[in-house]
């Protein structure tokens, strides 16, 4: 890969793939109704080169570690083909231009930073003086709008926080700033994280860059779409029941849900405190590793954050050309039986099985494992999440922040402010949670859900004890059409089957793009989920990195 072509690709926002050293080409079986397309074509820099017409913007080429490349070019002072230095100022300008160009179609941002260029200029200055720029210096990063950012509004996707400007930064945000990142804007989400399509945002519907008539997934849909559309180099999201992994899968980007306690939740607007985590999205595992290293670690302001040492997650990653012939030799994977049968679209199950075959070709041993209580996780999750949400959202009373509806009497004021400030899905969950926690109902719902939670944790523990990394699809389908599921909340909940149990157990999981499905003329990404033991993100990232560098062309 020539130097100047690499930088030219950087300038256009797309980076060509490194040469694959994986196993030779082979043709996978074709599913009868949906065709599975090549995902990582060699030598091509854009999907338009492939003659693929998604009807949407060019989607950022996957598997390009944009942030890492940017960082290296800033530090080395690499010159572009136009012989100007690749500076943060230049990069942020490019990203802002591309952000604005794509925004009318994708609508991933609720707020665009007005100080991004100033911040970039300041980093230019530090670099010019030879100061250490920080591990993320100059890299344009988008932040999901349920993370508090002092300099920018934070709405949680809700009208009840319309105009709210937090007086503090979330710890994850603070750490990004300290690493020199340029926070380019706040991304759209399902209101307070409640949803799987970003359609329950009070402000706008985000479109999937792969097909603008489809959802980007949720609740971190804005972050996933922004990364896929090249509007930012990488992004922060949150995951309570799959809210990073599922949009990552729908948008063809990498998404990491860290172990519960790995990243501070301080400043994350709480939805379900025993399930929420802050995590990362990027175009490749390298970038996600870079981001996680910056934000992870103990925080005195979060009593549930772990004091376990944070490794440099990048160090575990081995470049493709240094990989031995069977890089996954000796590793055991368990494909979760309950996730590849009924209830999953056959094309999705097929893509995931193909990915498993690839893992085997890399030397891994893959067995089927069963998690018998798997399907119970979904109702149990919704009982717990709705219950915790009903408690967490009681703080939104119109008094201390957000719009207040005028009323003569206090309770009427609460009722009206909340009734008008919250959207339908949030109201449903608050009421369901209130029901489940009502006196006399605890045994029937909440306690039973917690008992199911114990069983799920036990099942995972047993499966992971045998040294497996667990494998499953991320979602039963690729991205569905906007509006397709809004009328039936339950049908939306059923799509979370593959992801919620991981939150119940607090385990880390990675969503990796592993193939494309064609549906009604659109190419739609499918994600592979890898689940590991608590605090074993290094292992997941290492395996994910090997996978993404060696996945064969179809």
């Amino acid at each position, binding site marked *: 890969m020539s130097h100047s072509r690499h930088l030219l690709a950087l300038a256009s926002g797309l980076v060509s793939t490194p040469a694959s050293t994986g196993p030779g080409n082979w043709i996978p079986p074709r599913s009868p109704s949906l065709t599975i397309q090549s995902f990582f074509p060699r030598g091509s820099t854009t999907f338009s080169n492939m003659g693929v017409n998604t009807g949407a913007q060019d989607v950022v080429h996957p598997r390009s570690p944009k942030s890492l490349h940017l960082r290296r070019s800033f530090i080395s002072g690499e010159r572009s083909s136009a012989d100007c230095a690749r500076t943060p100022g230049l990069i942020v300008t490019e990203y802002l231009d591309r952000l604005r160009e794509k925004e009318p179609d994708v609508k991933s941002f609720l707020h665009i930073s007005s100080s991004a260029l100033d911040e970039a200029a300041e980093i230019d200055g530090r670099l010019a003086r030879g100061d250490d720029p920080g591990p993320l210096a100059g890299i344009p990063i988008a932040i999901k709008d349920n993370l508090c950012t002092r300099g920018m509004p934070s709405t949680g996707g809700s009208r009840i926080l319309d105009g709210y*400007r937090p007086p503090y930064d979330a710890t994850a945000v603070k750490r990004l700033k300290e690493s020199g990142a340029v926070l380019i804007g706040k991304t759209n989400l399902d209101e307070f994280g409640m949803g799987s399509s970003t359609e329950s945002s009070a402000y706008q519907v985000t479109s999937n860059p792969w097909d603008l008539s489809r959802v980007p997934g949720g609740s971190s849909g804005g972050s996933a779409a922004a990364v896929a559309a090249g509007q930012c180099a990488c992004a922060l999201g949150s995951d309570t029941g799959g809210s990073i992994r599922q949009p990552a899968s729908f948008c063809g980007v990498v998404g990491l849900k860290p172990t*519960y*306690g790995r990243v501070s939740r301080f400043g994350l607007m709480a939805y379900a405190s*025993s399930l929420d985590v802050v995590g990362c999205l990027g175009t490749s595992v390298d970038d996600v590793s870079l981001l996680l290293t910056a934000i992870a670690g*103990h925080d*005195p302001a979060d*009593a*549930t*954050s*772990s*004091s376990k040492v944070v490794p440099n997650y990048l160090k575990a990653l081995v470049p493709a050309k240094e990989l031995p012939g069977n890089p996954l030799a000796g590793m055991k994977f368990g494909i979760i039986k309950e996730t590849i049968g009924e209830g999953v679209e056959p094309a999705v199950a097929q893509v995931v099985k193909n990915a498993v075959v690839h893992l085997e070709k890399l030397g891994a041993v893959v067995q089927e494992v069963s998690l018998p209580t798997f399907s*119970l996780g979904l*109702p149990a999750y*919704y*009982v717990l999440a709705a219950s915790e949400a009903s408690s967490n959202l*009681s703080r939104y*009373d119109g*008094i*201390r922040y*957000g*719009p*207040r509806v005028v*009323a*003569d*009497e*206090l*309770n*009427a*004021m609460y*009722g009206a402010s*909340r*009734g008008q400030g*919250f959207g*339908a899905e949030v*109201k*449903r969950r*608050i*009421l*369901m949670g209130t*029901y489940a926690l*009502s006196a*006399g109902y605890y045994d029937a*719902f909440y306690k*039973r*859900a917690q*008992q*199911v*939670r*114990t*069983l799920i*944790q036990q099942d*995972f*523990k047993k499966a992971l004890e045998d040294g497996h990394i667990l494998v499953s699809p991320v979602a039963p389908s690729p991205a569905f059409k906007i509006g397709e599921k809004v009328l039936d*909340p*339950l049908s939306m*909940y059923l799509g979370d089957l593959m992801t919620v149990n991981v939150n*119940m157990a*607090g385990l880390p999981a990675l969503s990796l793009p592993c193939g494309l499905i064609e549906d009604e003329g659109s190419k739609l990404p499918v994600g592979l989920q890898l689940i590991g033991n*608590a*605090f074993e993100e290094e292992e997941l990232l290492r395996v994910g990195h090997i996978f993404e560098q060696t996945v064969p062309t179809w």
Partner: protein
Amino acid sequence: VKPPNVGELCEKARLSLTPDEAAEIGPQISRVVDWFGQLQEVELDNVDPAIRVGHEVESQRGLRRDEHLDFTEKDSMVASVGEKEGVFIKVPKILN
């Protein structure tokens, strides 16, 4: 267990719905609560309820030191408040 009564739940949750909203949300909630019913059918004797995730999220530092810390953001916090009167936050009267 009695099925969900939207009016009672709204009272408890301090949430006001319009009649149309209540009419729409009632069946939606009932449908989901019925679906929660699966949890009744599982054998759960002798299973402890899990309050939190399965692993220990220990914090080695334990309790923080009992020392005074200055909070410097009072002004910006108070700036978010809708209605103020002097040093008080103003709210409508409370009737019972």
